[in-house]
């Protein structure tokens, strides 16, 4: 293999066909309310951890639903579980439950 001084960039596109959606389907079937997200961003706006880091709950769970698990567990680990997001979610999503579910499915417990 020759080193040309650059690497071939990996595609940025979310490829639903290549992504393994098993875990994503499990997450959705366990808590179907997650699908009710309308992407308003209230959770992220009020997020205690999001105030201090780039943690974006809405984006991470959306990516997880699309089968993009890379880094999702680590991101979710930034969450302090304080529960503000659950109070502000206009769709009544049990956000803390979602955080824990995603961590359970994508982490090792």
């Amino acid at each position, binding site marked *: *293999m020759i080193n*040309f*001084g*650059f*690497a*071939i*960039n*990996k*595609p940025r596109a979310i490829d639903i066909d290549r992504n393994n959606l098993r875990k994503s389907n499990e997450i959705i079937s366990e808590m179907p309310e997650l699908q009710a997200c309308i992407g308003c961003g209230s959770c992220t706006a009020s997020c205690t951890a999001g105030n201090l880091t780039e943690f974006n709950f809405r984006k991470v769970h959306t990516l997880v639903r699309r089968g993009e698990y890379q880094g999702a567990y680590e991101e979710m680990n930034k969450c302090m579980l304080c529960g503000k997001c659950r109070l502000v979610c206009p769709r009544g999503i049990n956000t803390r439950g979602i955080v824990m579910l995603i961590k359970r499915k994508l982490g090792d417990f």
Partner: protein
Amino acid sequence: MKRSSWTEYQKDIADDHYYYARSCIRQNFFPGSEKVFLDILGKDLGRDIFDDPLHTSCTGIGYHSDVVPLETIMTVVARQFSLMAEAGYENFTSSCITSFGIYTELLATWEEFPETEERTRENLFKATGREFHKPKNLAHTSDVIFHHREAIAQRAKRKLVNVYTGEPLKVVEHIGCHYAKIFPKKGVGGSEFPYVLAGMVESWGGEVVDYPERRHCCGFGFRNYLVQANRGYSVANSHKKLESMAPYKPDFIVCNCPGCSMFLDKWQYTIAEMEGTTYGQNGAGIPVLTYEEMAGLVLGYDPWELGMQMHQVDVEPLLDKMGVEYDPAAKYLGRNGKFLGRPERALVNSCSQETLYKMKAL
């Protein structure tokens, strides 16, 4: 696939008397293509085409890389047009897709913003003392070949057919982005289903492969390629296309843009050397042709005369499929019969360079 939409996008292509503008990339990497284009038009089709030694680069690469300002390129282009007028032509045809895009864009700019035309006229006169003219007809050279595709088909010595199976060859056509993505109405078939190359392939007996990333850019992207650190992004685009087309087992790729021909050909080498992946059916690369080379093969030109030894991916498997007779030993001989040297062996190559060299050495 039911495809007839291209008929809604037609453009006027002059039938004769062309002023020819060369392409920087094509004349460097595929010099045979420009030569054969002139030959096909002049000798095979008996058309009048003028290859003017006075014309220059359109500076499009510089323009798209942010080193040539708009006013400068406008003046350069105006000079090309005035050279055309001075030579007594009014149909401009350019070999390069980038140039074609530039000419189209600037003509449209002058149309929309007449003050820029005024300034260009002034600048041109100040700089060169020439008169400002605009061509009556602007076409890319692939448009010209497209225009004459049936005439070429009539004179065809070979078809784009696999001589062993009798099946049409599977051809991936790749249209340069600047051909119709900027001004869809200025390209045959528009931007979604451009027909300029597909028309040639179909007229000459081949079958066009419609694959998911058909419209994707080859990845050249000027700055993206020119800056070494960005090349990973550039090659990723070709990578994406090749991944997408490979399952269709294409016999060859044909491009109308010199940059695309070069990148789709040479990035195959890069990808193979970096990742070990090759995309051809034979475990090597997929041959990449210019449409001039494709037309040349159809018309019975000698592949080495077409400059096909300059390709990264060996074309011999394709030549064999088409039933083209060629002298393997002559591959690396120049026009004067002198040995040109041979490339290093690479993963994408299917033919043994050694044997060829030795045959000649004997």
